[in-house]
């Protein structure tokens, strides 16, 4: 049961997200009938599911909401911005009461009552207008109605989907005068009855105006249910004595199905045949569209598959090493084909782990909407490239930093409407969120056309906070990077929205935890662009395999600029830790001494130039083994203090290679140098 509940909660949160998305879409674009339909459908599913799982509060709540949208759908109520606002806050409320179904938390309870009141108020408006319209309708449309035959044979498992077929019949009776015959001929002997199966067919005769109204009622009966709507006559047959008598006779006959058929033949208009056939056809088409195109898989399973694929890649590497030593052409042939398959499995499983960036965009839209109202700023939020796909683990951890950046854009970046017009800018500010690929990286760019970052103010602030000395000469880029220092916040006043001083340094740390980089460009008066560069996946990196005595290390290929071959003599002659390379003096770190390896270095060594925060530093290693696709494995808790190693990878021969975090090595090295200098 718990497992089903979990699934329900999962689905409910998906539905709410979908709802939020549509609502925001409506607000931005025009009200489109299909959007209203979608909202209604989501509400209805949510209502059904929640009552099935005993979430009474949720189902009651959604019931009222659903009513409102039902009215809007039928053009009996206009979708006002007030309704959208209420619905949006309802979404928030539903999220919280899904976690607290019994309304045990007082704030939830109070909230619940308030929300219910607001919704009931809305629906009372709708009732007023409805009454008015109904009057109109009665006046104009009592004529033009006709008698319909409606055959409803629910799917056998209709009860399992949480539907009650009687509700449909009840709803039908709202439309007009109805005569219903229940066909019990399919009901088996008592001993064979499955209480969860529906055996009954209902034959209804109704006098009403619109065929669509009838079909709408059965909108939520699933596709396996059989529904036939046939026009019998333009007259109100139910009032005719003869028809009523015939009906009664039919109702008590033993073969209801057959009698109904006879009855229909007797009274119906022949020309209708065609249209029902068409309807059948349309319904069949609809059925084929219903073929499942995607399935829900728990993320645990995906994670497990990923780790298995990683093992496969490792095993493949070992097989390759073995095959290199054999001369048997058959073996190498098989190895080669296995290698190909492995690569394809790897790529495929990676793509399974990728989710489109779109999945978190709704949250951002919501934030911008709420904040811009709160701050009274006019902002247009544009998203581009939302179909760009990223590893799901990255996506999950990306939402908080981006929310923070957007908050900053709105609070500090975009000016108020008056300020903007005074500066000759468009009154409406723009924030652009763009995602795109570059090589094996995904970039996420957030651009605003606000006032940009004030360099002098940033510098002054940093001086005040003793983050830099007064005499320091900094380039614009360096000044911008001050923003990422811990304890830096330029807002004079701590506002609710941003400026608690835990800002950008946390963003930077969260991004670098994902092995990403943050780049900031700002033009005063024109706006700011912040680019986040992220790896496509967290579990495999392209690296350069190097060796220092017997130990193998992997340096991520992304940070490497260049490699040089130098002699031991050349290194020993180096002055002040600087080496002359490419006509420039470059700082270097001898990893052999840094890692306390006391063995004698070889005559020829390699210098690998890596970049870190706009600096270039050379790392000296014994030899370069080659490029290597490393499956990252964590070093585990015992090594959590070793920051310079970001993980390990198992090589083809079964030994373990360590993945170096060059940024941390350089940082640690310069810190230790500073202590010596003091």
């Amino acid at each position, binding site marked *: 049961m718990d497992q089903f509940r979990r699934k329900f909660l999962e689905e409910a949160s998906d539905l709410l997200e979908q709802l939020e998305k549509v609502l925001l879409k409506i607000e931005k674009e025009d009200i489109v009938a299909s959007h209203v339909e979608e909202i209604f459908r989501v509400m209805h599913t949510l209502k059904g599911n929640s009552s099935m799982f005993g979430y009474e509060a949720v189902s009651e709540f959604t019931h009222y909401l659903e009513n409102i949208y039902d009215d809007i759908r039928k053009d009996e109520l206009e979708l006002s911005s007030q309704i959208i606002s209420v619905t949006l806050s309802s979404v928030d409320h539903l999220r919280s009461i899904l976690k607290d179904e019994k309304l045990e938390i007082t704030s939830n309870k109070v909230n619940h009552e308030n929300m219910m009141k607001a919704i009931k108020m809305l629906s009372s408006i709708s009732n007023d207008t409805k009454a008015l319209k109904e009057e109109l309708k009665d006046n104009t449309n009592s004529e033009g109605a006709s008698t319909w035959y409606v055959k409803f044979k629910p799917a056998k498992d209709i009860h399992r989907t949480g539907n009650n077929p009687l509700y449909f019949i009840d709803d039908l009776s709202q439309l007009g005068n109805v005569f219903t015959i229940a066909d019990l001929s399919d009901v088996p002997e008592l001993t064979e009855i499955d209480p969860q199966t529906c055996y009954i067919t209902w034959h209804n005769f109704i006098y009403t105006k619109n065929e669509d109204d009838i079909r709408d009622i059965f909108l939520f009966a699933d596709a396996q249910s059989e529904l036939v709507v046939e026009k019998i006559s333009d007259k109100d047959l139910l009032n005719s004595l003869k028809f009523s008598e015939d009906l009664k006779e039919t109702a008590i006959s033993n073969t209801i199905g057959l009698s109904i058929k006879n009855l229909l033949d007797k009274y119906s208009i022949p020309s209708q045949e065609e249209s029902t056939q068409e309807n059948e056809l349309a319904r069949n088409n609809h059925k084929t569209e219903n073929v499942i195109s995607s399935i829900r898989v728990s993320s645990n399973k995906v994670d497990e598959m990923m780790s298995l694929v*990683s*093992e496969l890649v*490792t*095993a493949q590497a070992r097989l390759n090493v073995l095959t290199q030593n054999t001369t048997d052409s058959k073996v190498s042939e098989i190895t080669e084909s296995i290698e190909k398959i492995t690569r394809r499995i790897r790529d495929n499983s990676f793509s399974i782990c990728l989710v489109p960036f779109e999945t978190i965009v709704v949250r951002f839209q919501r934030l911008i909407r709420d904040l811009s109202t709160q701050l009274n700023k006019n902002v247009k939020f544009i998203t581009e490239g939302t179909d760009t796909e990223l590893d799901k683990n990255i996506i999950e951890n990306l939402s908080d930093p981006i929310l923070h950046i957007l908050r900053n854009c709105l609070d500090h970046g975009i000016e108020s409407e008056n300020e903007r017009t005074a500066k000759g800018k468009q009154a409406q500010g723009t924030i652009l969120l763009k995602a795109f690929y570059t090589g094996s990286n995904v970039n996420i760019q957030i651009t605003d056309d606000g006032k940009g970052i004030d360099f002098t103010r940033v510098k002054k602030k940093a001086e005040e906070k003793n983050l830099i000395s007064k005499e320091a000469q900094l380039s614009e880029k360096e000044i911008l990077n001050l923003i990422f220092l811990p304890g830096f916040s330029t807002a004079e006043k701590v506002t609710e929205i941003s400026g608690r001083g835990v800002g950008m340094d946390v963003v930077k740390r969260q991004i670098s935890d994902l092995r990403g980089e943050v780049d900031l460009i700002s033009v005063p008066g024109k706006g700011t662009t912040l680019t986040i560069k992220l790896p496509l996946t967290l579990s495999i990196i392209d690296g350069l395999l190097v060796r220092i005595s017997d*130990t*193998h290390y992997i340096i991520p290929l992304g940070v490497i600029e260049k490699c040089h071959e130098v002699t031991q003599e050349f290194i020993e002659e180096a002055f002040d830790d600087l080496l002359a390379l490419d006509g420039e003096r470059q700082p270097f770190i001898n990893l052999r001494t*840094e*890692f*306390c*390896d006391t063995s004698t270095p070889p005559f020829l060594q390699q210098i690998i130039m890596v970049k870190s925060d706009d600096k270039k530093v050379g790392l000296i290693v014994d030899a370069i083994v080659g490029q290597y696709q490393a499956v990252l*494995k*964590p*070093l*585990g*808790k*015992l*090594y959590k203090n*070793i920051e*310079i*190693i970001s993980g*390990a990878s*198992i090589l083809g021969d*079964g*030994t*373990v*290679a*360590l993945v170096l975090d060059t940024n941390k090595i350089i940082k640690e090295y310069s810190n230790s140098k500073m202590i010596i200098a003091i």
Partner: protein
Amino acid sequence: MKEDTNANINSYLTFKLGKESFAANVGKVLEILEVPNITKVPKSPEYMTGVINLRGNVLPVIDTRIKFGLPKIDCTVNTCIIVINVEMDSENIIVGALVDSVQEVLEIQQAQIQPSPSLGSKYKAEFLEGMTKYHEDFIMLLNIDKVFSADELILVKDSLIS
């Protein structure tokens, strides 16, 4: 359920460090390995020998000799790695313990276990579950969780066992 069964096991795996015998509850022991190629992790404490490849997973290896304050020696034929399950901050982690040699599995009843003397012991009392006598030898029963999750060395005094 699992913990209960582990706690009720009275079998202990004994191993030697230098001349002294120690024992670990078999409920904690997953397997015993020969010493493979160990990759040293730079800038780690001396007792952390490095990492090995255990069927595709990275397993940290601790040199129990150094952890217990004994001088480091080269591996012999008898040197092996006991793979143990350690509970650390209410999380289970798997580590390899490098020991001089593995002896045997003994049945030691609860009644045979004596509390370790708090005075005059070379080792901190919290790391020992107790001691037992076996063939004129004293075997120290280790509290595996404490021993291998502690960052410090186990020895109280600076004196080394000779």
